[in-house]
């Protein structure tokens, strides 16, 4: 077992014929992910990856023809909200949006619409998911992680790679790694994933990588204190970030004194979470 993605994932790629879409589709297929279809409006009937993956004009057509149960989105930011609505309306139960730079008002509409339909979204502005040895739905380099019993959840991309790599160097593997993304309004949050890890028999320990901005880490700390039995280690990025400045990620901003790294670390430590001083230290806290 694992969470969200595994061998039963039948993946559809929205924006499959674009540069990024095609590159990462190739990488995901090489990793062993079962990609059943692609969607690019106006290119229905074509095939990509030397005739292995059919392209459809719409998500609905692709899902009907192939039984896709997960969609990953690589379309440009200006089309991303529409792509998420389309996947939701086609009844895809799990949507992973990699696209960075989606306007926040678009995301508020998407999130409220998807919640009404009961559809799970991961992202946007995220590296996606990796269940080592089974399925890669996203852009996390497959060779930096090995299979194991540590669930990893993170708001960041390359920082997550750093942690997976440090784990691998210590012989520590991941059950599933979930990148939830760095935007202020996103789909799946820390608590959602912590709950999945708590109930996942393959996961014994958890690493949570947070950053400045918002209060999701504080809420996660409350959840950990009251509901979790599995040990959690953490790292919070942005201890040196100045207030009022957006640190690359749209969601990484200290506003009105709220969302500082110090507050988050304090809340997590109070919940019994061991917080690392630098990312390479995290796996050692779970040894």
């Amino acid at each position, binding site marked *: 077992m694992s969470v969200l993605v595994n061998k039963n994932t039948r993946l559809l790629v929205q924006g499959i014929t674009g540069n990024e879409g095609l590159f990462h589709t190739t990488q995901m297929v090489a990793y062993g992910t079962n990609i059943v279809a692609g969607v690019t409006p106006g290119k229905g009937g074509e095939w990509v990856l030397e005739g292995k993956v059919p392209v459809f004009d719409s998500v609905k057509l692709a899902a009907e023809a192939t039984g896709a149960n997960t969609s990953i989105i690589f379309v440009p930011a200006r089309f991303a909200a529409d792509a998420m609505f389309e996947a939701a309306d086609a009844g895809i139960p799990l949507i992973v949006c990699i696209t960075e730079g989606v306007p926040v008002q678009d995301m508020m509409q998407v999130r*409220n619409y998807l919640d009404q339909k009961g559809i799970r979204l991961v992202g946007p502005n995220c590296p996606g998911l990796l269940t080592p040895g089974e399925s890669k739905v996203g852009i996390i380099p497959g060779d930096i992680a090995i299979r194991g019993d540590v669930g990893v959840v993170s708001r960041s991309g390359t920082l997550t790679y*750093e942690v997976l790599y440090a784990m691998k160097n210590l012989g520590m593997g991941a059950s599933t790694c979930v990148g939830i993304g760095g935007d202020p309004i996103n789909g799946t949050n820390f608590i959602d994933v912590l709950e999945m890890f708590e109930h996942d028999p393959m996961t014994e320990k958890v690493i949570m990588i947070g950053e400045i901005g918002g209060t999701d880490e504080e809420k996660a700390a409350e959840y950990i204190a009251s509901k979790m039995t599995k040990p959690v280690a953490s790292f919070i990025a*942005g201890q040196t970030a*100045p207030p009022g400045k957006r640190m690359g990620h749209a969601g990484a901003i200290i506003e009105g004194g709220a969302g500082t790294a110090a507050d988050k670390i304090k809340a997590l430590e109070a919940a019994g979470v061991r917080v690392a001083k630098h990312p390479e230290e995290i796996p050692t806290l779970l040894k």
Partner: protein
Amino acid sequence: MKLHEYQSKQIFSRYGIPIPKGRVAATASEARQIADELGGRVVVKSQVLVGGRGKAGGIKVAKNSIEAEQLATQILAMEIKGLPVRKVLVDEAAAIDQEIYLGITNDRAAKKPVMMASSAGGVDIEEVAATTPEKIIKAHIDPLLGLRDYQSRDIAAFIDLPRDYWREFGRIAKGLWDAYKACDATLAEINPLVITKDKRLVALDGKMLIDDNALFRHPDLAEMRDIDEEAPSETEARKYGLSFIKLDGNIGCMVNGAGLAMTSMDVIKLFGGEPANFLDIGGGAGSDKVAAAMRIILADPNVKAVLYNIFGGITRCDEVARGILAAMDEVKPKVPMVVRLVGTNAEEGRALLADANMITAETLADAAQKAVAAARGA
């Protein structure tokens, strides 16, 4: 992106929100002319993108146009929180009966916009929220439905607005929502919205923040960006699609990915150094982008060492190495450089840099310690 008061109020006005008559001036004589047109009694307001302008003496009332010219001369010579005043807004002075706060912002936790109002207007709303939160009403707006009329009525009732004003208040609240929505704002604020002695509702001050991610569909708003108000290095970085924030330390940082870039700064600090900047070159950056990033870092005279931390995923370490070499040819840096390359094509990247006289590191902690030591030695 922050808009100036005068820009925000112009937008509000387009959505039917009453604003005072007035115009913006870059010189004192212009200010005098505008005051003459408005009948003499005016408010001269500095236009800088920071709060606390009033407390800093950047907002003054003039009894006549001669005084307006004098005040404009003073204010245009001021610096407020480090920002020189380049423009003043000259507005007709209003006789105020009551001040109200009305604003819309995004509530991250609720995943919805929230309209906030208070009868305690004209002061910092964050202060009101901290000291007397019971004076603020919050109404969440369904982003799929928009602001409903009953919500405006509820707000008007809560802030004890006399019933005679409810209809007009509803129009203003709707106008503010429409402006917020149409401009992809993350904040649209009227503080204060006043009831004048002659019984009108007028937006005396306005503030808007626009979502940078939405500027692609607002070329008109993108043009309103005041680049005089930001560090030139930040303007230059934006041109190349780099995410850059200048800081006060002496160790320059170039990193791929925002979370890792913040972390690299933190680890520098952990080992006793101070980062000179935040810089995320983004995913898949080519050598030209890397070269631009390096020029921007090295243009800061405080920089005594540079740390390159690249974890190759989509980004290829050999591309980054080529960018570093190209920029070194051009800017001939005199400060020590520490480089750490891991991931996609790291071997090739390291080989390219073998003769470049750079300090190499295996781990982030190692790299940060070497950068701190190098900055001290320089």
